[in-house]
């Protein structure tokens, strides 16, 4: 991690000093444990604040849309795939963008660490190789980093950036090792009514803060459907129907575009696993349409194209 941090700073300083970019989007150390902050470095001095750790959980591609400056961005596999998606959807200009690629070792789930520690307050978390040292008042625990990876990082298939202008280290093994299809499998084993109750349970704690939407680089509409008022597509209340409508429609809007980056889950203050929806959609798109989002800038996204041999089982 330290080596990646050094190389990111080096690249950022060079790009800023040369005037190749006005700003470098990266992460800087957070003020609380396990939260790094998206950070826009605009000078060589500021570039010295950039860091890389297991807690760079926000998707920085989210900050590229509607940005006027010449921009460099620090991008691991998933972020690079979202950059590709934004290029496909004409949201960013490749000529004004420099990508500092980071082969990724996966990010750690803050909520998994907190669950593991139990009813104790964490004062600091340090990374020591494959171990996380979690410290609080009167305790210090050493935890295995790999066991605490975010679910999506555990099943990640593309840890290396798929598009970059320079890389900060040698590529890593691309697949993280988890079985990505198993993520969606529980839905498939359930009867429809059980699916519905499992779904309701999964989203019951939602407070509709929209952090999932706002952390997502796919959600760049000027006016989101939940904010539309003429007509109002979705009610504003905490009634189940309104909460569920938001999540179902959000997931559908991500179909064939979601890179499974996990930013939504990491942002959720209530620990909701919204990937229970998006992972099923990801699997269907991959298996039924043979399409993996964010891999090829020239490809037409699967929901934007019609082929006579597209599966049409749903209307049979």
């Amino acid at each position: 991690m330290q080596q990646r941090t050094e190389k990111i700073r080096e690249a950022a300083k060079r790009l800023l000093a040369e005037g190749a970019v006005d700003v470098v989007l990266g992460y800087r150390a957070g003020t609380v444990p396990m939260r790094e902050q998206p950070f826009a470095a605009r000078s060589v001095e500021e570039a010295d604040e950039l860091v890389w750790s297991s807690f760079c959980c926000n998707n920085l591609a989210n900050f590229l849309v509607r940005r006027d400056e010449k921009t460099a961005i620090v991008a691991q596999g998933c972020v690079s795939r979202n950059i590709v998606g934004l290029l496909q959807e004409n949201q960013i200009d490749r000529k004004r963008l420099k990508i500092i690629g980071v082969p990724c070792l996966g990010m750690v789930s803050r909520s998994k660490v907190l669950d593991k520690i139990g009813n104790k307050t964490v004062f600091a978390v340090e990374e020591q190789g494959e171990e996380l040292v979690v410290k609080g008042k009167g305790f210090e625990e050493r935890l295995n980093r790999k066991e605490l990876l975010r679910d999506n990082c555990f099943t990640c298939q593309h840890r290396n950036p798929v598009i970059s202008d320079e890389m900060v280290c040698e590529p890593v093994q691309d697949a993280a090792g988890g079985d990505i299809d198993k993520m969606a499998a529980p839905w498939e084993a359930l009867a429809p009514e059980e699916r519905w109750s499992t779904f309701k349970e999964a989203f019951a704690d939602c407070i509709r803060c929209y952090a999932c939407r706002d952390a997502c680089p796919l959600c760049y509409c000027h006016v989101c459907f939940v904010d539309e008022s003429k007509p109002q597509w979705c009610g504003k209340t905490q009634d189940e129907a309104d909460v569920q409508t938001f999540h179902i429609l959000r997931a559908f809007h991500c179909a064939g575009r979601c890179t499974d980056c996990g930013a939504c889950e990491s942002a959720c203050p209530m620990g909701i696993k919204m990937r229970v929806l998006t992972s099923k959609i990801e699997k269907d798109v991959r298996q039924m349409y043979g399409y993996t989002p964010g891999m090829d800038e020239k490809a037409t996204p699967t929901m934007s194209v019609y082929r006579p041999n597209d599966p049409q089982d749903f209307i049979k």
Partner: protein
Amino acid sequence: MADKILAKDKLDEFIAKLREEADVYAPARVGAKTTWQEVNGAEGLDWDFTNTEMSPKDFFFPQTECMMRFKNAKDDPEGMIMKAEELLPRSRVLLNMRPCDAKAFQVLDMIFVQDEMTDDVYWRDKREKTLVAGLACNEPCPTCFCSSVNCGPHHQVGMDLLFVDLGDKLLVKVLTEKGEAASADLPPAAAADEAKAAELKAAAEAAISSKVSLDKINAREVLDLYNLPMWDKVHEACLNCGTCTFVCPTCHCFDIQDEVQGQEGRRVRNWDYCMSWLFTMHGTGHNPRGKKKDRVRQRFMHKFKYIPVKRDGEIGCVGCGRCIQMCPVNIDVRQVVDQMNS
């Protein structure tokens, strides 16, 4: 009023007595979270929690609240006439509320119930029918900064009773008449118990590691603060999600909508938030807070300048630190206040 003692093994009895006339709620651990739950007795009460993830403001200001109902029929003589919704049918007791949250409700009292013309019946009704028994904080979190914002770990404002956890018993500070009635049967505290509680108070206050300063914010003119160049940087990481406002015990903005389904109609208010562009969108299409920077600035200016100016120096923040812990991009209110004050 003299302090009392409540032994923890007498809590069942105490709660049973309260339940004769009220529903009783307290923070309890459910899985990995500490949330407010209805309690029947002492079982399940958590004495080690730092604070609940969500503040208890939902008890007085529900996220979705039906205010009135109407019949959606224009031609009917009874149609489109608003009928008041029934107010809270039964009293409530909120046990073990942290001092920061209790203080937040006292701040909100000043906003929801200002005078005859600004008298929110929904808020007032629930406040009047609720007894708050606080639990002093003996182990503040690293993100707590209550002592910098007119509050503190053993603060008593906004409560009827304050419990101080002495191990196998609670010292009960009686703060209001309502609290006196609820604790009438309890034995008086001994001098040693009082001394122990005072010791815990001093230790908790000393354990608060983070502080913010407000002197310069107070001295500066509104527009000087409003135009500080720091706002250009502060907003950059912000997602404009509403997490900070939703978990905050003092954020209180709302939106009112009429919902109709067939013949049924209701007027409902929902939490809204300054981070949302829609919150300030005018019918004309003009938005006075059209940019993210404007919206982020609003949240901090409201808490640390506008409320103090309007409410005799009271601050719209109680230092609970929830927004620091929950912000997905680590926007830290302490840093923002420091910059406003620098």
